[in-house]
C-alpha cells in the first residue's frame, strides 16, 4: 500500500458544556500520514493546539480497536465516517486526500446531551438495559453448560445481535433519533436463547417503555441505523422486537404493570 501525506481543513463542533450553545471552529492540520487512524489525526491536532496554548478538542475514545464503543464522531454527515462496518477509531486517513475538508460533529440526539465538544452522555443506554436487558440468574445457580444444547443457528444469531457495542451510531444516523436497533439487538440476543425464555414478555415491554421515556424517537423503518452500524446489527432484529412486543402486549406483560 502506498503511503502519502496530506494537509487538511477540519471544521469541528466546539461546545464548552451542556449549557453552551456550541459552534463550528476551523482548524488546519498539516503533514498527516495516510497510515494514521482518524483519532491519531485528532491526537496530532490536539498536540498542536496544546503547543499553541489553546484548548484541545474533547472526544470519547478508549480501546481504539473498534470494540469498546466509546468513540462517537459524526464525520461529514455520517456516524463513524464513510467506511462500512467501522468505528471512528478504525477509520484510517488513507480514506482522505490532500486538501480535503472534513466536518466533525458529536452524535446528536435529545437523549444524548452534549457534555463537551464531541463528547455526549449515553447513560440512557445503561438505563434501557437496567429495565430488563438481562437474564435474572444469580451467581452460583447454574447447571452444567452443556445441559442446555442450543441450535447452532439460533446461537449464531444471538451472537450476531449480542455483538452490539452500544456506541449509539444507530441513534445518530436515525432522523427520528430512535434507539430501536440498540434495544432490539438486546431483545433478540436474549429472546433467541432458551435461557431468556422466562422473562421474554416482560423484558421487551419494559425495555421499550424505558426507550420511550428516555426521549428516543419511534422507528419508521428507514434503515439508516443498519447502514451505519459498525457491527452490522441487522434490521431483522427490529422486526423480531416488533413481533416480541406484539406478543407481550397480548399477554399483558410488563413487570411494572403486574
Amino acid at each position, binding site marked *: *500500500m502506498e503511503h502519502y501525506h496530506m494537509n487538511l481543513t477540519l471544521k469541528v463542533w466546539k461546545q464548552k*458544556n451542556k449549557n453552551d450553545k456550541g459552534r463550528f471552529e476551523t482548524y488546519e492540520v498539516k503533514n498527516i*500520514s495516510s*497510515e*494514521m*487512524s482518524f*483519532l*491519531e489525526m485528532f*491526537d*496530532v491536532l490536539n*498536540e498542536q*493546539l*496544546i*503547543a499553541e496554548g489553546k484548548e*484541545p478538542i474533547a472526544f470519547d*475514545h*478508549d*480501546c*481504539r*480497536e473498534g*470494540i*469498546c*464503543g*466509546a468513540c462517537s464522531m459524526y464525520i461529514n454527515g455520517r456516524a463513524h465516517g464513510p467506511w462500512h462496518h*467501522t468505528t471512528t477509531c*478504525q477509520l*484510517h486517513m*488513507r480514506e482522505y486526500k490532500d486538501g480535503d475538508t472534513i466536518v466533525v460533529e458529536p452524535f446528536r440526539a435529545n437523549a444524548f446531551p452534549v*457534555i*463537551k465538544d464531541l463528547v455526549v452522555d*449515553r447513560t440512557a443506554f*445503561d438505563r434501557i*438495559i*437496567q429495565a430488563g*436487558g438481562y*437474564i*435474572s*440468574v*444469580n*451467581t*452460583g445457580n*447454574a*447447571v*452444567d*453448560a*452443556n445441559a*442446555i*444444547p442450543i441450535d*447452532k443457528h439460533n*446461537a449464531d444469531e444471538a*451472537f450476531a445481535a*449480542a*455483538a452490539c*457495542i*452500544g456506541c449509539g451510531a444507530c441513534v445518530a444516523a436515525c432522523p427520528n433519533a430512535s434507539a430501536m436497533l440498540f434495544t432490539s439487538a438486546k431483545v433478540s*440476543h*436474549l429472546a433467541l*436463547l432458551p*435461557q*431468556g425464555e422466562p422473562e421474554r414478555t416482560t423484558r421487551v415491554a419494559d425495555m421499550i417503555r424505558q426507550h420511550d421515556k428516555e426521549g428516543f424517537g419511534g422507528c419508521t423503518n428507514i434503515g439508516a441505523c443498519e447502514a451505519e452500524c459498525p457491527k452490522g446489527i441487522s434490521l431483522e432484529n427490529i422486526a423480531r422486537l416488533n413481533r416480541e412486543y406484539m406478543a407481550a402486549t397480548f399477554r399483558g406483560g410488563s413487570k411494572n404493570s403486574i
Partner: protein
Amino acid sequence: MTLNSKIPSGSLESKWKTYKSTCKLVNPANKRQLEVIVIGTGLAGASAAASLGEMGYKVKTFCFQDSPRRAHSIAAQGGINAAKNYQNDGDSTYRLFYDTVKGGDYRAREGNVYRLAEVSANIIDQCVAQGVPFAREYGGLLSNRSFGGTQVQRTFYAAGQTGQQLLIGAYQALERQVALGNVKQYSRHEMLEVVIIDGKARGIIARNLVTGELERHFGHAVLLCSGGYGNVFYLSTNAMGSNVTAAWKAHKKGAYFGNPCFTQIHPTCIPVSGDHQSKLTLMSESLRNDGRIWVPKKQGDNRKPNDIPEEERDYYLERRYPAFGNLVPRDVASRAAKERCDAGYGVGASKQAVYLDYASAIERYGKVEANKLGLENASAEKITELGKGVVEAKYGNLFEMYEKITGENPYEVPMRIYPAVHYTMGGLWVDYELQTTVPGLYALGEANFSDHGANRLGASALMQGLADGYFVIPYTLGNNLADDIRTKAIPTDHPAFVAAEKEVNDRINKLMSIKGTESVESFHKRLGKIMWDKCGMARNEKGLREAIEEIKALRKEFWSNVRIPGDINEFNPELDKANRVADFLELGELMCMDALNRNESCGGHFREEYQTEDGEAMRQDDNYMYVAAWEYKGESQFEMHKEELVYDVVHPTQRSYK
C-alpha cells in the same frame, strides 16, 4: 511485616473446599448494613459487584469510562479456559493447574492456581446461564479450541469477541442489581485516593470527570478491580485510558506491589507503523491454531512474501519447538520473533515483523470442505474459495480488523506481526483471600499479582478475572466482613476523609499550576520509550540502572514543565491523563528496580545475562523462588519483602516445549 499468604492447610484438592465450608458468614440482615466499594467494572469488577449485590451487600461501582460496559476486558479476543474436558482429550482440573504453574515458569502459588482451575468450570456454567453466546457445534453443544502452552482444547470462545461477550454478561448482571437498588453505579469517575481509618481501608476519594468535583465515599471494604499497568510502556494493546492510578494510590498507602517487572509481551500484534502510533492492536493468539509463523531463510530478503518459495522459508517455531510448534507460550514465541528480527531476518518496511501465514490453513480447510461436498476433482481456486469461507467463519472479524488497519488483505498476503506489551502479571500483592497488605483493601483480576507467575497463558486472564469476582470474593469478603458487622457507616466528614481529599486537591492544584511547555502525551511517550528499550522484552543490568536514572530525571522534568490546558472544574481529559502519567512515572522506576533485583530469567522477565546456550530463559531457583513484594517508603524508596514459593505437588524443572 511478615507476609502471610493464608493458604489453607491440607491437600491441594481440599484447600478451597475446606475454606468454603469453614469460613465465617454474614447473615442477610447484616449484609444490608455493609457497604462495599468496587473500583473498575471489567470482568473482575462487574462480576464481583453483581455477585455481592445479589448477596445483599450495599455496593457502589466506579469506572472512568462513560459506561461499565466499556471496561477494557471488552477487547479480549480469543477465549476463556476451563477444565471441562468436553473434548475428551485428557483435560482435568489438575492438568489446567499444572499447565498454568508451568506456563508461569514456576513463580505462582500452587494453592491459588489450583483454586482457579477448580472454579473454571463453574464460570462457563454461570456465563451460559446468563446467555453468553459461546460458539457451538451443530449438535448444539459448546465448541472449544487450543491456546498456547497446552496440548488440549479447553478454550471456550465467541468468535474473536470472547471478552466482549463475557463482559456484556457480567454487565447485564450488574445492571440488574442497579435496577434492584443493590448497586449504585458511578461512571466517568476516577478513584484518586484510598481512605484509611484505624488501619483499615474505609473509603475513597473519587473525581467526577465531568464536573471535576472531588467526592468522598465510605465503604466497609474497597475492592480494586482496576486492571493492569501495561500503558506504562505508552504503546501497548491496553485501552488509552487503562492506568495504574487506583493500584498505585493503594500502594502508596501501604499495599505491597508484587513482582512489578513481570510483563507479558504478546507475540502477535500489528507492528508499529510510525511515530504517530497511539496504541497497538492485538491479533488473537487463537490465530496460532491455524496460522504458521515464518521469516525468509535469507537475511534482508526484500521479495514479496508470496514470491518466496516454500523451501526458502524458515518456520522457526516449528523448527525450534516441534512438540508445541506455533502454539508455544507467549513469552517463548515473542522472544523467538525478536531473535529472528535482531538477527536480520525481519520483514516489512521496518524489518521489525514476522509473517503469520494462512495459506496452508486455507488449503487444508478447503480440501476438507470439498470432500464434504463430494467434489472429487475440485480446482485449486475452488479449494481456496472454500477454505477462505472456513477461515472467515472462524476468524473473520480479526482478518477484517487487520485489513482496516494495514490496508492489506490477509486472505491473500501473510499478515505481518510483532510482539507488543499486552498484560501485566505483576500487581498488588494479595493473600489467598485476595486481600492486600492493607486490611479491608482487596485486589481482583489483573490488578493483583496472584495466579500467573512470570507468564500468563492465553485465555487465562478472562478465567482469572471472573473466578475472582464470581466465585472467590463472595466467600473471602464475608469471612472478613463478619468481624465488621458492628461497624457503623463512618460519616465522610471524618478527619481521614478530609485529609485524603486535601491531598488529592493539592496534587491537582500543583499539576495545574506548573503551566510548562510540554504536553502530557509527550512525557508519556518518552517514558514508554525508556521502558520498552530497557525494561521490555530483554533486560540487562546496565540498561536497568540507566533507566532508573532516566525515569527520575523525566519525572522531575514532568513536575516542572508539564502543560495542562483547561480548568480543574470541568471536563478535562488532559488533566485526567496527567494524573495517570504522574503515577506511571513512579511505577516505571519500581518496575526497573524489581527487574534489576531479579538476577534470573523467568517467563516474561528475560535478563540477557541469564540464558541457556540456545537462548532460553534460565531460572535461578535457589535464589529467586519467591514473590518480590515491594513496600513504599517514600519517593524512590521501596523495601522488598519476600514470600517464598513452596512447591509441594509440582516439581519445577527447566521449562521445555521442544
